């Protein structure tokens, strides 16, 4: 690779440094935008882990996100501090993953997908019956609210989630997941315990989704449970990952960036229609650009590299490729 290890770390360090100092020079609304970006990145990585790396399509992400948001609110009201509330959000997501994952991940992927869909539907109905309208945080929280604290919570959580994804991708766990995704039967036969790996990945994924929900409550203070559990919160992260590049580390980041920017610019003008457009773009991406933006970028990088390196390319072998010493019968 042209970029040496050292150069990469330097680049990451610079970006992190710039982001870490963010609230010092950013306008408040931009800080808010970044918080939304962080939430999307974490949620998208959650879907990416079980969907992009393990190949299991989670259609009920909203239930995990919503549960995290709800639980954080309830725990907060109950008097716990924000750290506990966030942790509880993550645990909720994890528990939910266990509930859905254990029965369905032993079977073919369609059962998992429909199982998650069923959970999401059930949750949405349950929640809209139990909690109608908005749930507000008590005013003491509003008084102590700073955008900066939320920003740093979001930034740190995002860094942790990205680091986790990076470590997983390079570990035996990650290799096993990808093997499961590409050909589960073949992986099984070579001794990979695919069910265990899928469940573990799903637990981590659920935890991350819960955290994203917790940060959401933490930032917005007022939540509307019905909205938190709507299919939108499944579709948008799904779309982010597929457009950004499924199964890559940076894909969800690129996708989230684009989404947040586009939503920020167009949400007033398009309204509900923007979902229709997103849907169409999403379908086109899955059918014709399966690698997403991440793949496009790496291809572009290869082209540039080829451009600048010397022409030492391999020549095509001549047609008579018989190995030396063989005689024709």
């Amino acid at each position, binding site marked *: 690779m042209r970029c040496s290890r050292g150069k990469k770390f330097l680049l990451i360090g610079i970006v992190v440094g710039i982001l870490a100092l963010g609230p010092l020079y950013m306008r408040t609304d931009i800080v808010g935008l970044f918080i939304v970006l962080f939430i999307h990145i974490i949620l998208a990585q959650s879907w990416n882990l079980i969907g992009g790396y393990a*190949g299991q*399509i989670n*259609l009920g992400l909203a239930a995990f996100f919503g549960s995290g948001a709800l639980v954080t609110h309830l725990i907060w009201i109950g008097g716990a501090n924000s750290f506990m509330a966030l942790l509880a959000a993550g645990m909720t997501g994890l528990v939910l993953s266990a509930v859905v994952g254990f*029965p*369905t991940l*032993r*079977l*073919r*992927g*369609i*059962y998992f*997908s*429909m199982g998650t*869909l*069923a959970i999401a*539907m*059930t949750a949405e*109905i349950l929640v809209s019956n139990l909690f109608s309208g908005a749930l507000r945080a008590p005013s003491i929280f509003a008084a102590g609210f700073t955008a900066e604290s939320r920003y740093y919570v979001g930034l740190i959580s995002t860094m942790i989630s990205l680091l986790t994804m990076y470590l997983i991708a390079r570990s035996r766990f990650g290799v096993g997941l990808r093997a499961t*995704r*590409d*050909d*589960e*039967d073949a992986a099984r036969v070579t001794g990979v315990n695919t069910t265990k790996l899928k469940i573990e990945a799903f637990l981590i994924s659920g935890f991350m989704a819960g955290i994203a929900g917790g940060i959401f409550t933490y930032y917005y203070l007022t939540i509307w449970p019905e909205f938190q559990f709507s*299919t939108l919160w499944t*579709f948008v992260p*799904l*779309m982010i990952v*597929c457009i950004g590049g499924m199964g890559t580390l940076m894909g969800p980041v690129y996708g989230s960036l684009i989404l947040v920017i586009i939503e920020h610019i167009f949400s007033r003008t398009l309204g*509900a*229609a923007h*979902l*229709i457009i*997103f*849907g*169409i773009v*999403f*379908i086109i991406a*899955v*059918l*014709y650009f*399966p690698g997403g933006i991440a793949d496009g970028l790496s291809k572009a990088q290869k082209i540039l590299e080829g451009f600048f390196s010397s022409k030492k390319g391999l020549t095509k072998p001549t047609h008579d490729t018989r190995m030396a010493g063989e005689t024709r019968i």
Partner: protein
Amino acid sequence: MIVTQAIISGLIIGALYGLAAIGLGLVFGVMKYLNIAHGSFIMLGGYASYWLFALLHLDPFISLPLVMLIMFIMGLIFYRILLAPLSKFSEDLKVNNSLLITFGLIMVVDNSATLLWTSWPKSITTLYSGAAFNIFGIRLTYIGLGGMGLAIVIILALHLFLTKTYFGKAITAIAQDWEAASLMGINIDYTYLISCALAITLAGVAGVLIVLCYSVTPSGGFSWLMIAFIVVTLAGMGNLYGIFAAGLLLGVSQAVGSLLIGSSYQGVIGFAILLLTVLFRPDGIFTRKRKGYAR
């Protein structure tokens, strides 16, 4: 007495469940794609019938052939634009991508429906809508009977089609082994195209009955998708014949079960049946239990 009424009502609803499920089962059995937008297509069928009724005053049973034609054309377009491009992917990717694409389609269709027709429920009320008659103390609605009759006719037609026509036999062959089927000279792509259109048409028929008996909303597709999925799982993925029976079974179970736990928790019965099937009989209750599990 109440139990008998429940059983009869359950059978009638079950016929509708079976009808709603055939389209899903057909696409999955033949192409191995899971079309989760199936529920949205059911709703679309209902909407088509609704607007023909509202604007042209056509009785839904009379406009049925027209609705079927509309849905058939929609199915052709759906296959060509969305499903045909999937054939380039490997077997494992195909299923996943079909899930993703049809999920995207749900977003497009449901939100378009909301934009065009609002999310207020629409239903059709005709002169005979509430009318019923009594036999031996059992109450039967005309619409219920009509729906049951329709379902039976369709099942029979499908059976004849699958067993007596070359095209139908081609479908059965492809469902078992598509490569071998292609070696018979069967045009796989064309068969897929027509099967998909048929499946969507059947979804539309279910939608017509639903808009008569219940209502249609842009997001109503999900619950019908779940019902269709439960029925297809119960019958066994790829087993088309069991679907009607499985639908009846689900309908009766829900009807009788709601006597015990109340009608608002009917959905739970469906999920319980799904869970039990998946845990103990993943290949469906009509397929002989294979060694191993549903992989």
